[in-house]
């Protein structure tokens, strides 16, 4: 994550939507993969790719649980991810503040 400027990992529109959606949850709460997919209108493949990139940067973490034959994948924004979004917001404000 850069010290200043716009974080390129979050700046991509799809990933920004993912991070912003997860940030709306209280800290410690997780969102199911299917609900996130419904909310953002993404295909499962696209969502998996974007989540993987965010997970590699430790911005999100995912957990897969199994209840009988049903498996549930949940996604949560990490503290690092929340901090990165805050920095991104601040950078955007600084950038657009003069307009």
């Amino acid at each position, binding site marked *: 994550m850069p010290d200043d400027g716009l974080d390129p990992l979050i700046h991509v529109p799809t990933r920004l939507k993912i991070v912003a959606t997860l940030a709306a*949850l*209280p800290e*410690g*709460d*997780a*969102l*199911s993969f*299917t*609900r*996130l997919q419904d909310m953002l209108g993404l295909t499962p493949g696209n969502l998996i790719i974007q989540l993987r990139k965010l997970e590699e940067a430790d911005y999100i973490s995912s957990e897969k649980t199994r209840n009988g034959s049903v498996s549930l994948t*949940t996604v*949560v924004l990490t503290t690092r991810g929340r901090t990165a979004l805050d920095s991104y917001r601040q950078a955007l404000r600084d950038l657009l503040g003069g307009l």
Partner: protein
Amino acid sequence: MLGQHPYAHPTVVAVPGAIAFGIVNTVATFAVAKRATAGVTGRTRLRASEIVISVALWIGVFAVMGVLIATGVSDSLTYGLYPACVPLIAAGLPWAAIMAGRADWRRCAQALAIAVVGIAGLFAVPAGAWLVAGVGICLVLLGTAAIVARRQRA
């Protein structure tokens, strides 16, 4: 409610009207909350035991009110002080305890403030209790909104 004097016991029309409003309000609240929190899991979600205790307390408040009516307690207490203050205390204190258990201190403080409004209302006259409750809740909600807005701007 048409024909309802605010400081007298409810008319025949007011009671079913109030009950219907309560049912519609409760069903709508649960439906919206269920839709909004679909797919959400984690520590802030209510446990079944917490829901049962909260609902039982809430029903208990109005069951006691029914007992007050049945035993002929004065209208000023039954329809004045009690419904204006006791529900706020009964909702505020358990909610504060639940939020404290989750270390959610903002919501804990908000719930305690609601309970304090209810307790303050007990020291007012029956009509004043409704005023205290109305103004108090309004201030608590506005204060909470101001804190949230300030945090979002920071």
